[in-house]
C-alpha cells in the first residue's frame, strides 16, 4: 500500500511542474507588455520602464524567471491581483468557500435524487417511469446549463416570485462577519432570524442548475450498474433465502451497484468546477468561478494565472485522493 501511495505521489509531481510551466508560459503569451499593462499605456520614461522590468524580474533570463516563479509558488506567493492589489491567494481563499458550498449542494442534490431514481428505474425496468427517467436523463446530460439557469430564473424568480435572482443572502436585511465563509453555517451562527432561510432561498436555484448534469449522469449510471448487479447469482441467492425485496435491493444489490457510481461521482469534480463558472456567472454568486470570468474582463492576468493554477491544483489533489481511496478499497487497482 505504501508503495502504491508513493508511486501515485511521484506521478503527480511532473503534472504539477507542467502545470506551473503552462501557467508561466501562458502569461507571457498574452498580448501586451506586463509593465505597460500595470502602468497604463502612455507616458513612461525609459528609466522607469527599466526599473519596473527589473522589479518584476523581466530582465532575467527566462529559465531563471521560471525558477523564481516556482520558488514563489512553493512559498504560497501566487502574485498580486492588478485590480484589487490584494494577494491572489487571499482573494481566492475568501471566495472559495462560496464555490465549495455551491458545489457541495449541487452534488448532494444530484446524489440524493439520482441514486434512488436510478435504483427505482432499474427495478421497474421497462415501465413508464424508467422510460421517462431515461429520457429526462438524456435531456439533463445535454443541458446547456447557462440556459437552464436563465430559464429557471425566468420561471421561478420572475414568474412565480419564489426565489431571489442573485447573490447568497439578502444583504439589505442581514449582515454578519463571515466566520467560516460557508453562508449556511454563518447564518445559523449569526442568530439573526430568517438569515438561514434567506440563504437557503438563494441557494436553491443555483444548486439545481449545477446539480442537473451530475444528476443525469448518476441516475443513468446507477440504473445500468443496478441492472447488472440484479442478474448476479448472489442476488438470486438472497431472494431464494426468502429475504424481503427491499432487503435484497437496498442491502445486497445496491451496495455492490454503488462502486461504479462512486467512481462517477469522483470524476464529476472537474466538471463541477467548470459548471460552477457558468452557474456563478448567471446567479452573481460571489465564488471563484465568477471571479475568474471577471478577471478576464478586467485583464487581470495575475489573478487569472493564480486562479487557474489553484483550481487545477485542487482538481489534481482531489483526483489523487480519489485514486488512493480506490486503491484502499480495491486491491486490483493497487497492483494494476
Amino acid at each position, binding site marked *: 500500500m505504501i508503495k502504491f501511495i508513493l508511486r501515485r505521489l511521484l506521478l503527480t509531481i511532473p503534472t504539477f511542474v*507542467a502545470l506551473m510551466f503552462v501557467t508561466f508560459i501562458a502569461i507571457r503569451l*498574452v498580448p501586451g507588455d506586463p509593465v505597460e499593462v500595470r502602468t497604463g499605456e502612455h507616458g513612461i520614461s525609459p528609466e522607469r520602464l527599466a526599473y519596473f522590468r527589473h522589479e518584476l524580474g523581466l530582465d532575467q533570463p527566462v529559465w531563471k524567471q521560471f525558477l523564481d516563479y516556482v520558488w514563489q509558488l512553493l512559498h504560497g506567493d501566487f502574485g498580486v491581483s492588478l485590480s484589487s492589489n490584494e494577494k491572489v491567494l487571499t482573494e481566492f481563499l475568501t471566495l472559495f468557500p462560496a464555490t465549495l458550498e455551491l458545489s457541495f449542494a449541487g452534488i448532494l442534490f444530484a446524489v440524493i435524487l439520482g441514486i434512488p431514481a436510478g435504483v427505482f428505474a432499474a427495478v421497474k425496468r421497462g415501465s413508464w417511469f424508467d422510460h421517462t427517467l431515461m429520457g429526462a436523463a*438524456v435531456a439533463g446530460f445535454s443541458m446547456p446549463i447557462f*440556459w437552464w439557469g436563465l430559464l429557471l430564473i425566468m420561471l421561478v424568480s420572475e414568474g412565480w416570485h419564489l426565489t431571489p435572482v442573485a447573490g447568497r443572502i439578502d444583504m439589505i436585511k442581514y449582515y454578519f462577519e463571515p466566520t467560516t465563509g460557508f453562508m449556511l453555517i454563518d447564518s445559523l451562527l449569526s442568530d439573526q432570524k430568517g438569515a438561514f432561510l434567506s440563504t437557503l432561498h438563494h441557494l436553491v436555484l443555483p444548486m439545481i442548475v449545477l446539480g442537473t448534469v451530475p444528476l443525469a449522469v448518476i441516475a443513468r449510471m446507477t440504473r445500468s450498474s443496478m441492472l447488472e448487479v440484479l442478474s448476479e447469482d448472489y442476488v438470486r441467492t438472497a431472494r431464494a433465502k426468502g429475504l424481503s425485496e427491499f432487503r435484497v435491493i437496498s442491502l445486497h444489490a445496491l451496495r455492490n451497484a454503488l462502486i461504479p457510481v462512486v467512481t462517477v461521482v469522483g470524476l464529476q469534480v472537474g466538471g463541477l468546477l467548470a459548471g460552477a463558472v457558468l452557474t456563478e456567472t448567471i446567479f452573481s454568486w460571489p465564488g471563484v468561478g465568477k471571479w475568474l470570468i471577471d478577471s478576464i474582463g478586467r485583464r487581470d492576468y495575475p489573478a487569472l494565472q493564480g486562479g487557474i493554477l489553484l483550481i487545477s491544483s485542487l482538481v489534481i489533489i482531489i483526483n489523487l485522493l480519489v485514486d488512493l481511496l480506490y486503491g484502499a478499497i480495491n486491491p486490483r487497482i493497487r497492483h494494476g
Partner: protein
Amino acid sequence: MANAPAPVTAQPAGPFAAFWSAFSHNRGAVGGLIILLTIIVLAIFAEWIAPYSAIEQFRGMTKLPPAWAEGGDARFVLGTDALGRDMLSRLIYGARISLFIGLSVMSVSVVIGITLGLVAAFLGGVVDSVLMRIMDLIMSIPSLVLAILVVSILGPSLTNTIVAVSVVYLPNYVRLVRGSALAEFGKDYIIAAKVAGVGPIRLMFVTVLPNCLAPLIVQAALGVSNAILEAAALGFLGLGAQPPTPEWGAMLADAREFIRSNPWIVTLPGLAILVSVVSINLFGDGLRDALDPKLRRS
C-alpha cells in the same frame, strides 16, 4: 420456368447490415438521427431556407414576439431580437455555426488524437510517459477553465474557440486510441504482420487502427455534442464567436437583459442548443449500442 424464384443462398449479414438492424431497433437513436439530419439540411441550405439574412436589421420591428403570440407579425415567425433581426433566420444560420464548430473540433481532435495515441502506444517508454503526463495535465484542468485560459491568450473568436475546445477534448481520444492499440498488440495478427515485414507506419494506421475504430466512432459522435455545448458556453461568456455572428451561445448572452420583458429571445437559442445536443447524444448512444456486439440483440 422464367418465373422460378432464384435460389437464395443464405449469406450472413454484412457488418453494415448487422449494424443497421441493431441501430434501427433503437427508437431514440433513429429519432435523434432524423432530427440531426434535419438540422444538417437547415445548416447546409441556410441561404435558401432562412427567410432573411442573419444580420439584416428591420427598423421599427425590434423585439417582436413570435407570430402566434399577441402583437406578433406573420412575416417573422419566431419574432425578432433587440436589434430587429429575424430570430428564425438567426437560429438557422446558428445551426451552421454550431455544427461547423462541433465537426471541426471533432476532426481536429480525432486526427491529432489518433496520431498521438498510436505514437504513444508504439514507441512506449519516455515518449509514452511524457505524452500521457501532458494528457493528465490537460484533463486535470476543468474543461471550461482550460478553454478560458486558451481563449484569453489567443483572444476571443470563432477559430480560437475551435482551437480551445479541441485542446480540451484531445486527451479523451489519445487515451482511447492508446488503450485500444495496446490491447491489440499481443494479438497474433500483429505478430504475423510484423513477421511479414510490415513497416511501422503501415502497422500503425493500416493494421492496428481499423481494429480500434468502434469505440473511437462513438467517442467522436459524442464529442461533437460536447464541443457544441462547450463552444456555446464560451459564446455565452463572451469569449467565443463575436457579434453579429448568430452563434446560439452568444445570442443567449445578448438576450440576458430581456429575461423579464421578452422571454422568447432567451428561450429560443437555448432550445436550439438543447435539441441539437440531445439529438446527437441519442444518435451516439444508438451507435454505441449497435457497435458493441455484446449489447447487440440477437
